[in-house]
């Protein structure tokens, strides 16, 4: 399957709702995430909707190097999401701490606090990279679902 048809496929079967969470970032990645929703990049054409509450979200999109104050709230928001849930980290700071790696008030990356499904590096990650990352994550999910579905079919005969 070509990339385009793959994309259209999962867009049909899954319309991921995301919640955005800033863990102490400089805001550059956050602006690029919101820019990804504006007309030029238009993440909404993939069915991605930005939601306000974690209870409705499938994917949490995190930016920022995770300051100490934020850590308990990040954990709590993750716990409140219903499974299956995925964590996408945007920006080098969220991946590994970025330029703030080793600073005293910083945990150095989201994966120090919650398990991460996809890393989108960049300082900041451009909207194109963000779309690419989310699409890749969801394509990989579709493959997993297809594999699981095939397995079930085999089992059930």
């Amino acid at each position: 399957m070509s990339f385009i048809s793959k994309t259209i496929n999962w867009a049909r079967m899954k319309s991921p709702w995301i919640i955005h969470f800033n863990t102490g970032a400089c805001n550059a990645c956050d602006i690029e995430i919101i820019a990804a929703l504006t007309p030029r990049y238009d993440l909404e054409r993939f069915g991605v909707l930005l939601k306000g509450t974690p209870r409705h979200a499938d994917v949490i999109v995190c930016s920022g190097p995770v300051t100490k104050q934020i850590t308990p709230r990040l954990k709590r928001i993750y716990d409140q999401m219903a499974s299956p849930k995925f964590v996408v980290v945007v920006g080098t700071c969220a991946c590994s701490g970025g330029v703030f790696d080793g600073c005293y008030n910083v945990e150095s990356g989201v994966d120090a606090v919650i398990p991460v499904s996809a890393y989108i590096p960049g300082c900041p990650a451009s909207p194109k990279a963000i779309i690419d990352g989310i699409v890749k994550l969801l394509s990989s999910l579709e493959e997993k679902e297809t594999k699981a579905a095939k397995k079930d079919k085999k089992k059930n005969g």
Partner: protein
Amino acid sequence: MRKVIIPIGPQHPALKEPESFQVVLSGERIMEFSARLGYNHRGIEKACEERTYIQDIYLTERICGICSHSHSSAFVQAVEDIAGLEVPKRGLYIRTLIGELERIHSHLLWLGVAGHEIGFDTLLMYSWRDREVVMDILAMLTGNRVNYGVNTIGGVRRDIDADQLKQIAKAVDTLEDRTKYYIDIATKETTVIERLSGVGVLSHDDAIRLGAVGPTARASNVKRDVRKDDPYAVYAELDFKVVTDSHNDVYGRTIVRMGELLEAYKIIRQIVKKIPDGPIAVKAPRKIPAGEAVSRYEAPRGEDVHYVKANGTEKPERVKVRAPTLANIQTVAKMLEDRQLADLPIVIAAIDPCFSCTDRMISVRNDGQKRANMMKWEDLHTYSIEWYRRKGIDFSKVNEKFKKAVK
């Protein structure tokens, strides 16, 4: 008078919630407001002491993603002062150009965010679409949309050619047309005027007493602008005016920012015309001689102050940063005094705060209640729009009108 705010959103009654804002209401009126800051405290000043000057340029750039060039320029200016370096004119012109482009992208961003906070989402979409014009120019000149990395100690790292200058001039023409339309909307649409007027009032005297900076102060007729008062880069050679307004409210802040956009276009046109030939940087020593300097820069949000102390090594002894939002946040309590809760989102948005919009938690307590209810920013945003809709302020018709008129 015993109206209780119903909380929606993530909270666990047993765990202590590190809320950012605390509001005490009597009915719907705000009696007390206080902010707990520090969520974005990453320990940058300490980190600056542990890194070299060149590394610190990139670190200070990331203090804030929207005024990144402001912070790195302020830092670099202080270091150049200590080392006694004279940056070549062309380098200064390029630094100023990027600074003004940053101001444009920041104000357009603010316009969109303000539109979103009052329920005028079409404005968000259109102003951010226009902002992409500026982002393209910045990406063309510096290689990145944000965090340009264009400063170095002694000048700038990238030069511009004649063709790029032509493109900048063209982009400025397009943006000026669109900005004039936004100004039209702000000054003629009654819904917008009603929604923004009389909200977030800060008198002239209070603005001075509380130490407001930037557009927040200028909208209260405080004529302070570091570009004019304490000129840096090439501002002393450029012709522009300091935009002030006497409405003292969020409407005034909108007018000031729109005015500054027009001035920015004027400045950029002058830069494109007057930029001299020559080198773009002087060589800087790795070890900066002992000394100290204070550098002030007019970031889009207001006065940014950097203090640097050098000790003769390749790492600074002390770097102190005072970002403009820290000065303005202290005026918010005054602006919210005796106002209703529904005004909180736009009042805070109007100082153009440089902390993230989505992780703010608000603790709302009513007079006589012992425990506070927690609201997420999103909930307050929805509450605010609903409150005004019940009063007849609704942007759905304006949205339609806007879409038809803007191409």
